[in-house]
């Protein structure tokens, strides 16, 4: 069973990604629990399937505006649709991969599966998810952790 105390691992990972990639700190709002299986998404979501010692998904979702500015802060001039998708997947991959520092090698992550404008949100494997709101500059994003 995923423990609420383990959320710190993902919060720290998200903050580290923003700080390192952009030299500008992000902040997180109070994490909350969603029990109806639909935490919602912005325009893009990078989804990582988790297997091994934990099963479920971790996804990072952000609007186009945030991803555009993130790319620019990374000195990337190509803000194409392809790079938006690439970035949202890479952020999800980095946060999930970094979680292995605490959860170990048995926390197995997939390559990112990226969805854009998902009409029905992201398919959730379990009804119970933790949502970590992320604020960076004027933009809002979410990290969703749905693990057994």
């Amino acid at each position, binding site marked *: 069973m995923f423990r609420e105390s383990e959320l710190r691992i993902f919060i720290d990972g998200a903050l580290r990604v923003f700080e*390192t990639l952009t030299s500008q700190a992000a902040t997180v709002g109070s994490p909350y629990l969603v029990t109806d299986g639909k935490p919602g998404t912005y325009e893009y979501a990078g989804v990582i399937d988790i297997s091994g010692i934990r099963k479920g998904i971790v996804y990072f979702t952000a609007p186009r505006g945030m991803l555009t500015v993130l790319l620019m802060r990374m000195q990337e001039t190509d803000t194409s649709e*392809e790079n938006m998708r690439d970035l949202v997947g*890479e952020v999800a991959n980095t946060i999930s*991969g970094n979680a292995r520092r605490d959860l170990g*090698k048995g926390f197995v992550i997939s390559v990112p599966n990226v969805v854009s404008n998902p009409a029905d949100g992201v398919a959730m494997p379990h009804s119970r998810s933790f949502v970590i709101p992320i604020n960076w500059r004027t933009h809002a994003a979410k990290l969703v952790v749905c693990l057994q």
Partner: protein
Amino acid sequence: MDGRVATLKMMIVDDSNIIRRRIERSQQIDRLEVVGSASNGVEAVELFKRTDPDVVTMDLTMPEMDGIECVERLVALKPSVLILVVSALADKATAVEAIERGANGFLCKPFTDRQLNGALEELLGGR
């Protein structure tokens, strides 16, 4: 000896186009010349055979063939190649496994430009 340092050919392997472009843009080591990039292990092996690089940056979580297997294949092709693993997988066991399979260094994502160049300098050592 004329004091000039030989140029070393470098290949970048990562399934993220953004990361490939970032490594190419951010690396500031004069004697490294990027000769190509690949988005998975299969592409990397093919490109490696064509371009014969001296230095490789290698992601681990990739489709088709993952980075650990690719490290082994590249080392088998050219034992002297220097491979810097650049991965989000932050557990010690993965870093140790990569080194045991033939990698020479490990840089954890996310990374700053300074960290990337430091890791590449360390990788090159006396070369």
